[in-house]
């Protein structure tokens, strides 16, 4: 990218006569064409696989659409209905709890492990893989099934607690008070992918800063706060934005743990799960499409807020 822009800068400064300018413009046009040609596969994908369905879903959100009969225009009725849909409000509450608690905890875990791994220990590639593994498995059906069995009344967790003499009889997934927390725990456990990104970011911080700080007598904690955090802040920001967006779209874990019901008592009714129920179980695809757009707006708002506040704490070091 930089090479091309430098070239064009050189051309621009040299180009004097109109004739030369015309030739240059032609050349640039050819360059652009080649660029678009290379982009073509991605562009086609964007238009057909993402753009088209997006426009279709926006249209459907203004219709009453049962999937079986043709959609029927209802204007804003689907959006209006959201105001008195108690399950929708419940699903928003569940999803916000999941995002606002799960994401920070996950990032803290990821950063802590990344810092430990960055201490130049032996066998780093091995540990990195081991800690990365859960994030590849975490959204799989098998792990969700395993999770369900671990947190049952007679599941592994309670059996271990009993070994320590604690009379554990709570069903962590059967009791509406705790069910969501087991899924948040599952989310935290999948800290691997932000951890790898943190690790890469930590590697980029020049060691001389720490050396200089040590010479000046700064404690480890001060070094962490004054050197690591500021220099890592763009990476933290990147992970935060990405993980929030991902967390809002969580589906598999809740679907499998509750068998698609969002139970017990709607305590794990994620927004996407409810959207799925409306669309595919109740045949209200128009309403489901409207819900998808509400989620897009929510995520966009969260991202915008994130970017807005990033000016106050993200340090780009240039």
């Amino acid at each position, binding site marked *: 990218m930089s090479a091309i822009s430098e070239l064009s800068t050189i051309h621009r400064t040299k180009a004097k006569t109109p004739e030369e300018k015309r030739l240059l413009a032609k050349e640039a046009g050819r360059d652009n064409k080649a660029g678009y040609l290379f982009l073509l596969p991605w562009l086609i994908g964007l238009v057909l696989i993402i753009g088209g369905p997006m426009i279709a879903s926006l249209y459907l959100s203004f219709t009453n659409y049962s999937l079986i009969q043709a959609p029927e225009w209802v204007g804003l009725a689907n959006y209006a209905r959201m105001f008195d849909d108690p399950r929708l409000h419940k699903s928003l509450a569940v999803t916000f709890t999941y995002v606002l608690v799960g994401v920070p905890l996950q990032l803290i875990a990821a950063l802590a492990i990344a810092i430990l791994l960055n201490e130049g220990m032996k066998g780093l590639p091995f540990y990195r893989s081991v800690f990365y593994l859960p994030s590849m498995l975490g959204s799989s059906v098998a792990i969700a099934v395993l999770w369900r069995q671990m947190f049952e009344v007679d599941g592994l967790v309670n059996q271990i607690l009993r070994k320590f003499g604690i009379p554990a009889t709570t069903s962590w997934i059967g009791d509406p008070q705790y069910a969501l927390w087991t899924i948040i725990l599952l989310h935290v456990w999948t800290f691997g992918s932000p951890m790898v990104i943190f690790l890469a970011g930590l590697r980029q911080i020049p060691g001389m800063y720490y050396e200089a700080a040590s010479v000046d007598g700064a404690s480890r904690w001060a070094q962490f706060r004054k050197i690591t955090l500021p220099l890592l802040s*763009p990476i933290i920001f990147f992970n935060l934005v990405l993980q929030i967006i991902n967390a809002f779209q969580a589906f598999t874990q809740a679907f499998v743990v509750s068998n698609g019901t969002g139970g017990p008592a709607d305590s794990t009714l994620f927004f996407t799960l409810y959207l799925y129920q409306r669309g595919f179980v109740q045949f209200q695809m128009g309403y489901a499409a409207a819900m998808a757009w509400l989620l897009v707006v929510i995520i966009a708002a969260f991202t915008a807020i994130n970017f807005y506040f990033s000016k106050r704490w993200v340090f780009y070091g240039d």
Partner: protein
Amino acid sequence: MALNRRQFLIGASGLAAAATTMGLAACAPGSSGGGSQGGGQGSANDLALAFWGNPTRNKNTQAEIDAFMKANPDIKIAGQPGEFNTYWDKLATQTAGGNAPDIIQMDMNYISEYGTRGALLDLGKVDVSKFVEGTVDSGKINDKLVGVNAGINSALIFANPKIFEKAKMDLPDDKTWTWDQMIEVGAEVASKAGVPFGVAALLQSDALFGTFVRQHGKELFTPDGLGFDVAEAQDWYDLLLKGQKAKAFGTPEQVSEEQPKPLDQSAIVIGNAAMQYYNSNQLEAVTAAAGGELMKLLRGPSLAGKATERKTWYKASMLWSASAKTKNPDAAIAWINWFANDPAAANIDLAERGIPPNAEILAEVKPKLSAAQQAVAKYISDIKTEVATTPIAPPPGGGTIAAVIFRHGTDVLFGKTSSAEGAQKFVDEMKSNLKV
């Protein structure tokens, strides 16, 4: 002018944000392709047959298709096996895309969704004259036959004789037992045998709740909508609370844990329940999963203590339907007719899809049935004089009733709401679901 670090990082965050968000909105129905082998393709004699199943049914169905094609060489059928949970997503998407399979294995909870919206073929030409009384009506939507019963089923209670033995108790007399006696027996057997459940899975049974409201002179659904009131729903929740207090139906945690479990981990299979709600066609699978222990079949209880007044009915465990848009309605009807009336089909299927509704066919295959299927066939014929009229199929939106009754019921059992309030919410939500 090269990008500096700041611009690159901001750009990267922004791009990633945009890309992941866009993927979300693109989850529109159109994007979930699937269904490349739907009806609309190939010649008019190429039919697609979609069904959900298990390994046995997949093998049987392919053998049936082969036998049918041998007898009708000009018709070609391609089977599309599926799994129950994903089957409906796929069918809905295929139907939306205009390429529904020609022949569709249908479920009572979904038949009106498709039937009332004109997606199913009129099957008036299928010969159902030899069907046992009450077994044809389940497939009628607005008096038009759009689903042909593929196997009779009935909601009942399975009892594990081993647990009753352990408790040194006899099985209850299912011809005279009332709901209250069910609680008494359940509590006694649970405490004597030391198992969590006297009776498991009651809360998730819309079918037993159906008999309960019919015993009150109401219906689950009428052509006008919901057929029962808050009062019946509250009585039902009170009954469950009473059973919970008596330690007959398990703790609320156990009840909500039980609901998502697959059959092979269900309470009665792993020896955690003396009795459990099931449908009769599941006996073979439950028996196999429980290591061959043949469960006893008990009639559901009644208010009056008389089996003849418990208002049960012959359910269709599944039905055969055809797409209204099939290019070859005659061939689709020929398959359904063959399945319903030809011993060749029944000799392969036996009772895997439920007890054959065609009396002559049942007589033909009965000697070949397994012990479990024989027991079911006997039960189905035993209750012949006890069954009441067949209720109408749940109207569109009505298929949600099992999930709704369970969800508000869990709130009641956990003490988060009173039974009156839970019942009110249950009825309100059903009414709003029926307004599709």
